């Protein structure tokens, strides 16, 4: 048990606990807020593993943009404040889902734990200039394709919301 192990244990415990609460709470808005804590804990995990740039981008994109979008969507779909029994699932449904989720975790653990090995590895912090060099060298075409993907997503989201606004008026 090294110091980095303890640090990772702390951030990982925060991540897992917040993720569990995010998928089990009955308050819709609390679910989004627990997601913030879980993703923030995950950024801490990235920091402990030495990926500083990824941790920063993760906080910017997820906590700054994705969760804000989720909260906007909850508000625009008139999510009630307080616990909502409206979308509650039955106990059997949740038990089956829990069994399947635990099964997925167990399968992944069975594959991954032997890969990890017994010996600890040294932490190698990655310089952002290294990442930039590879990103604009080796990975430049996937990078360009992703910028195109973002543009398409922007136009697509705009089109979907415009079409949906126009559609219900036609039959009447």
């Amino acid at each position, binding site marked *: 048990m090294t110091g*980095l*192990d303890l640090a*990772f244990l702390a951030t990982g415990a925060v*991540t*897992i606990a917040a*993720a569990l609460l*995010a*998928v089990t709470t009955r308050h819709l808005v609390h*679910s989004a807020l627990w*997601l913030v804590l879980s*993703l923030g804990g*995950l950024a801490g995990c*990235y920091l*402990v*593993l030495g*990926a500083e740039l*990824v941790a920063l981008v*993760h906080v910017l*994109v*997820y906590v700054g*943009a*994705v969760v804000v*979008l*989720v909260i*906007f*969507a909850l508000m*625009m*779909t008139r*999510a009630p404040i307080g616990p909502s029994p409206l*979308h*509650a699932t039955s106990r059997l*449904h949740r038990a089956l*889902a829990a069994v*399947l*989720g635990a099964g*997925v*975790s167990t399968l*992944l653990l069975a594959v*991954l*734990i032997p*890969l*990890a*090995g017994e010996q600890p590895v*040294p932490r*190698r912090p990655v310089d952002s200039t290294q*990442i930039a060099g*590879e*990103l604009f060298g*080796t990975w430049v075409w*996937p990078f360009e394709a*992703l910028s195109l*993907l*973002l543009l*398409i*997503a922007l136009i*697509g989201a*705009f089109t*979907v*919301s415009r079409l*949906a606004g126009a559609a219900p008026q036609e039959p009447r």
Partner: protein
Amino acid sequence: MIHLALPYAVAAALIGIGTYGVLARRNAVLVLIGIELMLAGAGLLLITAGAIGQDRWQAGNVLTLFVITIAAAEVVLALAVIIAVFRARGSIDITEAAHEPASEAAAGAS
């Protein structure tokens, strides 16, 4: 020095929790939160694999950045579709497809 079993365990747990969230929720936005958790677990897996060493092209870090970008694009489109569905039927319950007339009436009332 860090043991890699811990990050792998956290990633596997995140993916399992995300699966539970996708399967156990009926509100479409909450299903999306489960998908976000699964993508987060995938990112942690990539970073951990990159931390082992012999990461010649910084693939662990760069691919995680790509996954984050794709997740952002995915969440934008998914929320646009969810809001469009809410406008059309007045509900974002993903199990409600079976009884169409009831949701039509709800959309008319709202």
